[in-house]
């Protein structure tokens, strides 16, 4: 793992930037939707392990998706997409994909959290600490994926922790462990990216022209996600933002501009006084 904490290194080693001098490799999820069978084992395993409450019986009519989205009470969410397709005999395709917090390299939720409740772990994951969180909710609009959410009857914010407690004892997250077809793979992010690249090439060769990786690039708007995906279609099809950008990316620039403006104002006002003496 790079010890160099230059700009490049910071992007690739968020744990080091966050003061974890000796830390394990950055861990993450590679969700290969091409083998997802939509079983929702990930949703249940997550809830069982993390004691996430059941959140109501609601038949949505949205294919087999009755979870609807990620939220305080759904840290994994399997999307079901039925859409027309001209390339096959059936005239449509049924896509399934298990979504999760992206554990961004540049995490806006972390940037905006005023209480220190959200922190970067030694594994590079982003975790909301429920003993600190006061439910201010700043992180909620900050997330470019809409992951962070307030549990209404509790007031605090909850989301995927990448099973921080399990990682600490060398166990993989509950969802990845349960996944029957290894659609959810857990491991060092570097290895996952390499594996994903290989799988993508196979699929493209097999004729899946729209297959793509989503969130794996360190050059994307969030500096690369710690949980990335192999999709068979455009991200919008799965309800994912096509080009997410960390909402705090312009923060420094904005402060700089604001500072300049303030300085200019001070100078102008000062100038006015100087002028008046004359």
């Amino acid at each position, binding site marked *: 793992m790079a010890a160099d904490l230059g700009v490049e290194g910071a992007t690739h080693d968020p744990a080091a930037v966050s003061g974890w001098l000796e830390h394990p490799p950055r861990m993450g999820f590679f969700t290969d939707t091409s*083998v997802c069978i939509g079983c929702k084992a990930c949703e249940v395993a997550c809830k069982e392990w993390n004691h996430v409450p059941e959140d109501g019986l609601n038949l949505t009519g949205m294919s087999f998706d009755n979870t609807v989205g990620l939220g305080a009470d759904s840290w994994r969410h399997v999307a079901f997409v039925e859409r027309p397709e001209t390339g096959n005999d059936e005239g449509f395709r049924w896509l399934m994909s298990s979504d999760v917090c992206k554990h961004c390299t540049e995490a806006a939720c972390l940037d905006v959290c005023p209480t220190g*409740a959200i922190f*970067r772990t030694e594994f590079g994951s982003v975790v909301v600490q429920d003993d600190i969180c006061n439910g201010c909710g700043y992180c909620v609009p900050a997330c470019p994926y809409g992951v962070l959410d307030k549990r209404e009857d509790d007031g605090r914010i909850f989301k995927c922790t990448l099973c921080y*407690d399990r990682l600490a*004892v060398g166990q993989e997250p509950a969802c990845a462990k349960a996944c029957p*077809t290894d659609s959810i793979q857990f491991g060092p992010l570097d290895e996952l990216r390499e594996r994903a690249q290989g799988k993508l090439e196979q699929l493209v060769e097999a004729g899946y022209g729209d297959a793509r990786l989503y969130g794996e690039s360190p050059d994307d708007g969030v500096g690369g996600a710690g949980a990335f995906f192999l999709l068979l279609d455009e991200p919008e099809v799965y309800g994912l933002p096509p080009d997410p950008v960390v909402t705090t990316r312009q923060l420094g620039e904005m402060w700089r501009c604001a500072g300049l403006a303030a300085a200019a104002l001070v100078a102008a006002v000062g100038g006015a006084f100087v002028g008046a003496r004359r």
Partner: protein
Amino acid sequence: MTDLAWPVLRQLFGPDKTGRGVAAASKRSQSLLARTATADKVVKSVCPYCGVGCGQSVYVKDGEVVQIEGDPDSAVSRGRLCPKGSATLQLTTGEARLHGVLYRPPYSSEWESLDLDTAMDMIADRVIATRRETFEWEHEGERTRRTMGIAHLGGATLDNEENYLIKKLWTALGIVQIENQARVCHSSTVAGLGTSFGRGGATTCMQDLQNSDCIVVEGSNFAEAHPVGFQWVMEARARGAKLIHVDPHYSRTSALADLFVPIRAGTDIAFLGGVINFAIEHDKWFHDYVVRYTNAATIIEEDFVDTEDLAGMFSGYNVDERKYDFQTWQYEAGGMNAPSGSRAAGTVQHADGSDDDAESADDADGSGRVNERSSDAVRSAGRAESHGSGGAAISSTDPERDETLQHPRCVFQILRRHYSRYTPEMVERVCGTPQDVFLEACRLITDNSGRDRTTSFAYAVGWTQHTVGAQYIRAACVLQLLLGNIGRPGGGIQALRGHASIQGSSDIPTLFNLLPGYLAMPHAEEHHNLDEFVEADAHDKGFWANMRSYMVSLLKAWWGPNATVDNDFCFDYLPRLTGDHSTYQTVVDQIEGRCKGYFVMGENPAVGSANTRMQRLGMANLDWLVVRDFSLIETATWWKDGPEIDTGELVTGDIRTEVFFMPAASHTEKDGTFTNTNRLLQWHHAAKEPDGDARSELWFMYHLGRRIREKLAGSTDPMDTPLLDLTWDYPVEGSHDEPSADCVLAEINGFDAEGEPLSAYTELKEDGSTACGCWIYCGVYADGVNQAARREPWRNQNWLGGKWGWAWPADRRILYNRASADPDGKPWSDRKALVWWDQDAGKWDGHDVPDFVPDKSPDYEPDDDAEGPDGLAGDDPFIMQADGKGWLYVPSGLLDGPLPTHYEPQESPVDNALYRQQSSPSRKLTKHRDNQFSPSGSQPGAEVYPYVLTTYRLTEHFTAGGMSRWQPYLAELQPELFCEVSPELAQERGLEHNGWVTVISARYAIEARVHVTDRMSPLLVDGKVVHQVGMPFHWGPNGYAKGDAVNELVAMAMDPNVHIQEDKALLVDVQPGRRPRGPALLELVDAHRRRAGVTVETGHQI
């Protein structure tokens, strides 16, 4: 991590200048410890849901289960679990479980609490009284020694040890109406596979699917119903295999398939017959395999007439009696025909691969299994299922063969003619499958079969639950034999069973027609004593020659020292059958007042069985009912809140049935074995004792038996002798006096005269010196070691995982694996090597335990008078078959034909395009006012029920819902019953997406939410547009996620061989909106019947 207390100080003086990492870690974050790491112990277990048998690790802290997840060592599941398996913690520790006994007195409107001891005493009294009242020594002049007053249902969710005690105690009491989910799920599997190959279990194991070059999933929603098993399909796909899904409904399985093949529900035999025809016409069949390993060359009797020449019937049909005489279906006798001693008669079985004295079977005399002379009472007794470990009889021990396959009456030529009209055009006309899609499937299947490639088939209840269920399975057997795909890596037929131990509850049968190990339950007409029983069922030589040993050993296991040569080993203690005593007949008997007491354990017939209304009406006419389950399932509460209360048909205050609800223990609270869908026994260890008054079925059966025996102690009534003489002295342990499951398993395994455990069933004796509770399980306790508890991690062994658990027979994982080698004993190809002949060592070797006599050389030819195992040649791989061959054609063993033939379902929207005969002339129908049928095809009134309904499972739920609708984590994923329809049908009927629809059959009407989807599409069938509607069947009115039960709509229309019901294709009407409430619901059903002209006679024509 720095020691500074304040985060701000940590940020200032520590390495984390951002203050967002190490400096921000809270005390709690720093001290988090996974409960999997702090657990006091990890107990190895097995998932209690479907039949895949995933390994589970149960984490226990301070005596409580704190986490359940996949066991990463499991050779079957590799640590993975589906949503149900992942919800096991909630299932076993959640609030939905009851821990106290409830009692509903006669005519009462409420439950009362009852202490366990009182309840057990009351139940014991009722068993004794009802048995006294209804005991029947004779039936129509034949000795029966039984009671028809008490029945039992359930076993597939229970341990083998529990099933064993259930069968043992009830049989000793004279109860014969013992049934479980296997009847309604996979009884036709046993008949279909058993008559084709000699054993009734899946021919392969889940892990071997990874070696397939093509996998055909048909009659199964594999990815949804067996998700963790599906990992092996995905493994095969990753290696380049093609996945074909043939189904009426595009499911999550289809979404992963390379080719989805739409088909009209109920037409799979036409489809498979089409593939068979394609393989023959395009010369794609595996010649050497077919000639040497199947009965293709065998000549059939001259009088045999095929369906082609009799408008859809085989020769021998008696119109008046509606049954076949099988005489003309038989093999033609050869010159060497003899009642015994000829090679064709022999079958060989070998247990542990170490003993040369393997048995062989000879079904030469036509056997006590059903033959052409058998009466209705015998035919209806479910004998076809007794081929679960020993094929059917043949009338000729030395049939004529023509290995050029040119003889016009050889099986191959009969087969060719039989399927000659099953052309792609015909398949399209019958199945609605477009020809190009059908042909693509044919090409993929046949191109991926042969010396170097193998195709496997995976099916489930989409095939079994038909009036021709056994023949569905047979059609796949015929095709797989023709293509040479049986007994080989990546080949086989994967029967996907849906309960944790439904294979086990067939092997140790809580089934009316079987004794353990697929020995037939004795019949009053045929089996007056042990000699008759053995004479009728066993033969002079071969495997079944030793059948007396298995029977005597079973009787010794049950009656111990009381069973002696002098008293026929207590054979007379066994109650006798006189016909069909299956669960559906029991329901009729309940309605008609013959059956008065009912035990239901881990099954929910008020939701899960066909015609659920009749199930409830039956229970409403009982004296007493005992329901053992986790929660108050519909079967326990129909008397206060069932649908009939709402319609006014039943009034709670008028119902006299006494109801006991007994809370059950979960799998984490008891020791025992489950047998998975691949014959694999896996031991699960108890992690804790059950709380409150929850108890295992092992406890319930043992202590109920103990109490009844104590109450009857000293009785001199011969009725009580079998009970009092029974061996019933299991050691108990723990604070609840739980009987030792380990000791029960040891009894199942068997022991010798000195009490030493047996190692293989070859050691069983007919002189009474051995005892064995289930001969096919002999070896599971070899060397006094619980072999089912073996857990060698999959990483440390070959892909078959042979050191994980113990599989019957003789720990073989791929059955008939001799066929993986050519006649000379060499693998057909290196790529598909499994077992082979090692000339130097003079024995068979390989990756699996050889399913063959270990030292029988490939070139061995039996003498004409060879007996026993020597009667079969070195290239006869189907060692449980009377002729050593895989049966393309079944001359005996099935009631409804030697070759699978397309018949329309009992209720069909079209006329049979292939034959004048519409439905199977042998199908079994219950004629009852509450079980009426719609007209079919061109019959007047059929238009009133224009749509085909098919039912299926969802990943998120389990069978009748007792283990999923009460679990919030599962309920929220699929909260309501829905009905899937195509956009075209939605438009035709004005159905609104996510609105309500009422679905009406000739039995009942239910409501569901509408799901309009492209995944359902209309089919063009013989020029007619046929709409299919699909419904998952998991809901019922109780639980957290509620809904109507789809099985309200289903009729009791059955396969005659095994009495399985036709769930998967029936006719309905659909109308927008919710169903009426109260009596108006029945009026709606009646009005439809009147419009269609339905009477109790409708649909009963031949």
